């Protein structure tokens, strides 16, 4: 029984339950697990807590799970570019735990690395520090942040071999490796599954030990802010 599954629905079979915590890779709409998000929508799993830097846009990425009201709580650093998210949050329909972006990434990485808590200067003296333990190191205040362990991680990579070794592409790497690390189970969607041995072992970004199930999928890869410059006339 290998790690490769035929569809997102099949890969998520038996892993979803109401009230679960899901960690999702991606930054904005870049490097997001489009197919797995769709499959979670179709499965109708409810009362989700989702740890993800952003929540997509209104009708794409994690935004679709907000539209269907499947998400009870987001753990995010930035919620702009998503009117439905803002509306649900300001009206009190959605819980939102703001995390500084680096704290969120490190909370995922830490939990995956067996570190239940770490100290950071980020957020000292702000609302982020409220209720958190403060400790001095070298005379400076740091706050204690705790690891996030997810019931499930959903991740997008560029390529995988059949043992789950992953390669990401450019800035689509972003939160995907830390998100993968913090899941009790990690399901990955890729653009291409390649034979084992075809990726140089020194080029692997995330070893297969973090990856439990893999699907190959089609990806729209929508661009959120298309910015260009003009070619100089010849």
């Amino acid at each position: 029984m290998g790690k490769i599954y035929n569809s997102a629905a099949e890969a998520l079979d038996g892993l979803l339950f109401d009230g679960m915590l899901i960690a999702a890779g991606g930054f904005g709409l870049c490097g997001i697990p489009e197919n797995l998000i769709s499959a979670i929508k179709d499965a109708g799993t409810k009362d989700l807590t989702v740890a993800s830097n952003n929540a997509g846009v209104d009708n794409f990425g994690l935004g679709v799970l907000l539209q269907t009201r499947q998400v009870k709580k987001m753990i995010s650093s930035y919620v702009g570019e998503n009117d439905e998210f803002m509306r649900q949050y300001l009206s009190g329909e959605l819980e939102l735990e703001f995390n500084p972006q680096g704290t969120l990434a490190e909370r995922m990485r830490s939990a995956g690395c067996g570190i239940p808590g770490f100290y950071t200067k980020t957020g000292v003296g702000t609302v982020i520090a409220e209720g958190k333990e403060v400790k001095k190191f070298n005379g400076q205040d740091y706050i204690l942040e705790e690891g996030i362990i997810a019931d499930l991680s959903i991740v997008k990579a560029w390529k995988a071999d059949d043992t789950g070794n992953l390669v990401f592409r450019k800035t689509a790497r972003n939160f995907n490796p830390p998100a993968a690390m913090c899941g009790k189970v990690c399901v990955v969607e890729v653009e291409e599954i390649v034979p084992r041995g075809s990726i140089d072992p020194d080029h692997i970004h995330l070893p297969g030990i973090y990856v439990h199930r893999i699907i190959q999928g089609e990806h729209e890869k929508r661009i959120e802010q298309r910015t260009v410059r003009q070619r100089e006339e010849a």
Partner: protein
Amino acid sequence: MAWDRNQMAERAAQELQDGWYVNLGIGIPTLVANYVGDKDITLQSENGMLGMGPFPFEGEEDPDLINAGKQTITELSRTAYFDSATSFGMIRGGKIAAAILGAMEVAENGDLANWMIPGKLVKGMGGAMDLVAGVGKVIVIMDHANKKGESKLLKECTLPLTGKGVVDRIITNLGVFDVVEGGLKLVEMADGVTRAEIDSLTEATLVN
């Protein structure tokens, strides 16, 4: 004649030293990249990139290559990619020499508010709290006053803080100010701006 956006960006670029790794925030700070000239500056994009290049030519946009503002960008010959945990590791670890950020309010003790207006604007702090806590030097670029003509350089911030006592230098359309013991120190005035104008538009204590 106060500085315009580009002049503020140009003035901010003078703060950057050869060999520095720098993070530029969204908005006016982005324009600073246009004025670094011959200096060897490497721009970090906190979503996982060092060596950020300019916008792509039309038709060459790559959805896998964006900056922290989600804009399509390009890579350079010095570029390296990494994950978000590593990216903020280098930010918190003090490897980034300077961040140039926008702000809603700055207080005379260096407090910075730039991430939310309760009940109105709730976008989130993104990477700003990590940046101000971690980088070597925090430089703010912002208009000196808001649209109602009220000073944004305050005795105390009224909005939720991004960081406490974190700002080193402020570049506004009226001049350049350092956060020092006891208040803000006027370092430089924009061409044609008078001390009286600055005094009248500054709530924060100005020290010599």
